[in-house]
């Protein structure tokens, strides 16, 4: 009994500093943000509970709803580009890196391919804007100036920067596959293509799923690359406005828009629930099925 009490004391003592910082600056602010989304703190001297009023206002009031639905749709498009381009390319790069024909060059390729992910969005935005500038004629078309192409273009810049992350995830998953499994496939006469899709991919499916859900979380927190290219009022015609830039403008204010913390917290809470629901569904339904393949 005495030793249990001492264990409790030590556990609490050792984890208290981390607990205080983590709870104080991450968990509590997230909860407080959700609480704030149900309050009105602007109209009177004290905050009052207003239920779903802020949500109703955000979704339906003409002054905000158009921007909100636009940003939401854009954000799904931003995520879709990552899902369709970044993950398959990352998988291809990982598969190439684990090819048995590579020897010493493997580490060099791996390091070089990851370097873009270590850059800040400022340099990424700047250099790609320089490269696709219609002045030089590589592309004759103002990709960032057209409402139809601006968002996919920015999303592809982001893919260029971050593709190294799924690559590393899937690479470490692939090299963890035991050799005897692959030997067995080889003895059965399977070629590289069949081995990859029938043996290797099912084995790394849980990691593929995990990086897909992380990409979803990261893209719904997206802000930096859009801000680096377009500032907080992303044009042309709000075509590159995503939830992160809308959130920033709503709570911090911008030209032509008064700062509104309650409504900002509402936007943040919508993003939070979008992430929470999809992540919960994913872990409850998909990830469990994928795990059943595990060796």
């Amino acid at each position: 009994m005495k030793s249990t009490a001492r264990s409790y004391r030590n556990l609490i003592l050792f984890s208290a500093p981390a607990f205080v910082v983590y709870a104080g600056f991450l968990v509590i602010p997230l909860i407080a943000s959700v609480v704030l989304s149900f309050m009105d703190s602007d109209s009177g001297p004290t905050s009052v509970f207003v239920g779903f009023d802020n949500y109703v206002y955000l979704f339906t009031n003409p002054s905000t709803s158009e921007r909100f639905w636009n940003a939401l749709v854009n954000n799904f498009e931003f995520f879709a580009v990552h899902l369709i381009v970044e993950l398959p390319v990352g998988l291809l790069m990982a598969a190439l890196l684990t090819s048995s024909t590579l020897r010493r060059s493997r580490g060099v390729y791996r390091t070089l391919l990851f370097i873009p992910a270590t850059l800040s969005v400022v340099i990424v935005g700047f250099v790609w804007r320089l490269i696709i500038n219609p002045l030089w004629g590589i592309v004759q078309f103002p990709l960032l100036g057209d409402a139809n192409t601006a968002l996919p273009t920015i999303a592809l810049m982001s893919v260029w920067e971050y593709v190294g992350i799924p690559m590393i995830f899937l690479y470490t998953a692939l090299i963890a596959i035991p050799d005897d499994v692959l030997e067995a496939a080889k003895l059965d006469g399977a070629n590289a293509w069949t081995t990859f899709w029938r043996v290797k991919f099912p084995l790394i499916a849980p990691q593929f799923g995990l990086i897909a859900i992380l990409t979803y979380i990261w893209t719904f927190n997206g802000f930096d690359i859009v801000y680096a290219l377009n500032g907080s009022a992303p044009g042309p015609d709000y075509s590159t406005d995503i939830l992160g830039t809308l959130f920033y403008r709503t709570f911090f204010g911008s030209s032509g828009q008064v700062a509104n913390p309650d409504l900002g917290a509402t936007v943040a809470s919508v993003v939070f629930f979008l992430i929470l629901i999809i992540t919960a569904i994913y872990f409850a339904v998909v990830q469990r099925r994928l795990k059943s393949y595990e060796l």
Partner: protein
Amino acid sequence: MTSLNKPSRADAGGRLVVHVALILFVIVAIGPIIIVVMNSLKTTPGIFNGPFVPPTAETFNLDGWANVFKRGNFALNYGNSIIVTLVSTLLTLVLSTLAAFAITEYKVRLAPLLAGFFIIGIMLPIRLGTVPILQTMVAWHLVDTLVALILVYTAMSLPLAIALMATFFRRVPTELKEAAKIDGAGELRTLSIVLPLVRPGLAAVASVTMLPIWNDLWFPLILAPSKENQTVTLGVQQFVGQFQSDYPALLAALTLGALPLVILFTVFSRNFIQGLSQGYGK
């Protein structure tokens, strides 16, 4: 069975395809970075007359590199980034080591609950709590200080760091800890005996922690936007707007801003990869 030492023709062909594909990917990944570095060594007309041409005797120019430290607050911002990144990383290392040691060492019923509470944070985006964070910092008079950034970045980094450190502590043989305890070592002494064994974990934590802090644009913009307290990422972002005409200096600033992390990653890439894959994998 025949191809163990002598690669067959098909193997050689496959090998060529793999190398060609990887080299193409490397060109796409590294090409734009080379363009930035290369153009920082040219005159402004040299840049605009051919941004994809390497510097020639005529266009070669080091003014950009000389000017970058005179422009704006570049040196000051650089120092801010170094302070914020190093202090946050150090705090993350210390706090996550203590917490991960505790939740793996003291196997009481609270321990797994606490571990779960910390680790769920990997999935929780701190930015969505920005409104209350800003209000707290205003109330505590910490707005526009580096302290505000350090607190937020430490909170942001702890979940992944604790998850990582816990996997490393779990691998420490129990015999070692038992032996230390029999010798009468206290809790902190036991931790210091175990610490050398989790050194790869510390390196992994440090490398995955630094990257998002150095490159963040969101919190510097909201919590420490003044010229004196800007980090280099935000400083260079505003530099892009303000000094459009001095392209060589801008490109030199971009190069310098990226340099520390590119070097760190290249040196510690093994630790970094370990950190990324094991931290999220659990």
